């Protein structure tokens, strides 16, 4: 019984949350890694693009709600998601046309692109706040819990409850769908193969007649899909705060680099590694250990590595360690 209690406790506070958070990071890191693979620069505006995508989706959600259009027990934001993707696609395309294509024509060095993307980041940050304000926004509606902690306790007879939010299940399901679609696209379609070829060997791709403009366009579109999914799922699961996506940039980049930047599989693995490390390092294991230890024994302190305020230190530490020990990441990506 104690053992089961320990497992449920760990699932509720560590395993499920980090699986969900990991899926959100993986989607974000996939976007970063795809853009890097094709255009060879780290897009620092990625976080703010996620913020923009979420805000667009929130506005559409509010509009749907105001005309009485909802999705029943599902969140209305799911209906707004395709429109969010479209608007984000337009934004991303506008930045490409007005900023990045200029530097590509001049064949600028990657660091110039990175700095330009930092500019885009600050600009978007301001624009987004202009429209949505600085308040926290919860835009989740529909059924909140699929399994409630109290009901679970009653049903199982355990001391510990297990709660499962709808957004958690949605996040994991949509992440699986998106990743499956992405891999199908990259492996099976002509454009996907052209993108991989372009990422592998740009000169030879040009010699083979692959149009770089088309590849760039497809890349931005895919990144817009991933950006919107990652942003909206994160916002639905937690809440929308203007600075939260800026803060997410660090774990997302850590995830992309741990996995090997430019490697889609690496980005997914990296997302889960960063998420599990972050959640596990900031969780207090006292109660968990009490269940597993002898009767009546209890650890003296909280058995918590870091207090939750320091959770970003985990990403930072992982980032530094990877760059020191294995700069190409687990899947042998490129070196930034």
């Amino acid at each position, binding site marked *: 019984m104690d053992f089961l209690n320990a497992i449920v406790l760990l699932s509720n506070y560590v395993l499920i949350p980090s699986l969900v958070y990991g899926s959100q990071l993986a989607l974000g890191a996939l976007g970063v890694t795809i853009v890097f693979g094709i255009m060879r620069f780290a897009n620092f505006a990625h976080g703010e693009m996620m913020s923009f995508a979420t805000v667009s989706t929130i506005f559409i959600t509010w509009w749907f709600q105001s005309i009485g259009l909802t999705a029943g027990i599902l969140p209305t934001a799911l209906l707004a998601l395709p429109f969010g993707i479209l608007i984000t696609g337009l934004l991303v395309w506008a930045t490409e046309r007005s900023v990045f294509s200029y530097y590509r024509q001049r064949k600028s060095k990657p660091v110039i692109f990175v700095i330009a993307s930092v500019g885009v980041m600050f600009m978007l940050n301001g624009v987004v706040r202009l429209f949505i304000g600085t308040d926290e926004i919860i835009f989740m509606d529909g059924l909140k819990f699929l399994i409630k902690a109290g009901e679970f306790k009653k049903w199982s007879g355990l001391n510990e409850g297990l709660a499962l939010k709808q957004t958690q299940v949605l996040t994991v399901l949509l992440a699986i769908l998106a990743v499956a679609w992405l891999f199908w696209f990259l492996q099976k379609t*002509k454009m996907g193969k052209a993108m991989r070829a372009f990422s592998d060997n740009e000169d*030879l791709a040009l*010699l*083979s007649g692959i149009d770089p403009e088309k590849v760039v366009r497809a890349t931005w579109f895919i990144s817009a899909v991933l950006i919107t999914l990652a942003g909206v799922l994160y916002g639905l699961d937690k809440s929308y705060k203007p600075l939260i996506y800026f803060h997410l940039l660090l774990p997302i980049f850590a995830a992309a680099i741990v996995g090997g930047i430019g490697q889609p599989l690496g980005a997914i693995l990296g997302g889960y590694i960063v998420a599990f490390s972050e959640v596990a390092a900031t969780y207090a294991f006292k109660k968990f250990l009490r269940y597993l230890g002898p009767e009546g024994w209890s650890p003296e302190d909280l058995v918590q590595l870091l207090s939750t305020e320091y959770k970003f230190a985990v990403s930072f530490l992982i980032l530094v360690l990877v760059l020191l020990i294995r700069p190409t990441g687990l899947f042998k990506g490129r070196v930034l």
Partner: protein
Amino acid sequence: MSYLLGENLIGGYGTGDILKGCTLSVARGEISVVVGPNGAGKSTAMKALLGMLKVLKGKVTLAGQDITSMSPQQRVQLGMAFVPQTNNVFSSMTVEENLELGAYVRTDDYSDTMSQIYELFPVLKEKRLQPAGELSGGQRQQVAVGRALMTKPSVLMLDEPTAGVSPIVMDELFERIIEVKKTGIAILMVEQNARQALAIADKGFVLVTGQNRFTDSGQVLLANEEVRRSFLGG
């Protein structure tokens, strides 16, 4: 009758001219080999024919048509194929995907061409699901040539196809190149292994400082005392 002809080419990078009026040509169903010391402008001449280098003076014609001002992509569409010396495969992609990408510009069914290439290079069929980067040097060159052949080109240009492969592999590659030639393709290649290359050449060009020093059939060049002493090591 020359199918691809570069006449009196003058050009180079920046201000300095590397090509100082050299002339190269190749006919269909024949092999032309360009040899010469380092810095003679062999690869540069190849790039000029392909349009990857601005030609200041001179003319490039393909089947009688003046293509001097065309971009490399346009020339590829017209049937010119090029195998670079290095980084000539998509190393993270499988052999089959490499071939498919070779046919990227084709809109018709290319499965016939692919099976022809597998016939020509049986080892590629065996390894078709392996990433090209995991193959040996000689096999990688076969992938590179196979990729270039996927467009069904009329001219195949090879920049030092045997660089860095063992003598046995080199012989095998040359044999394959002769087979490709027999299908009626014009083959122009730059080679460091001058003696072996001239032995299979219908036409040979010895370039020195961007100019033709000797131009003749491969056999005649091999027999020429001066060519042997100066360029073939005795």
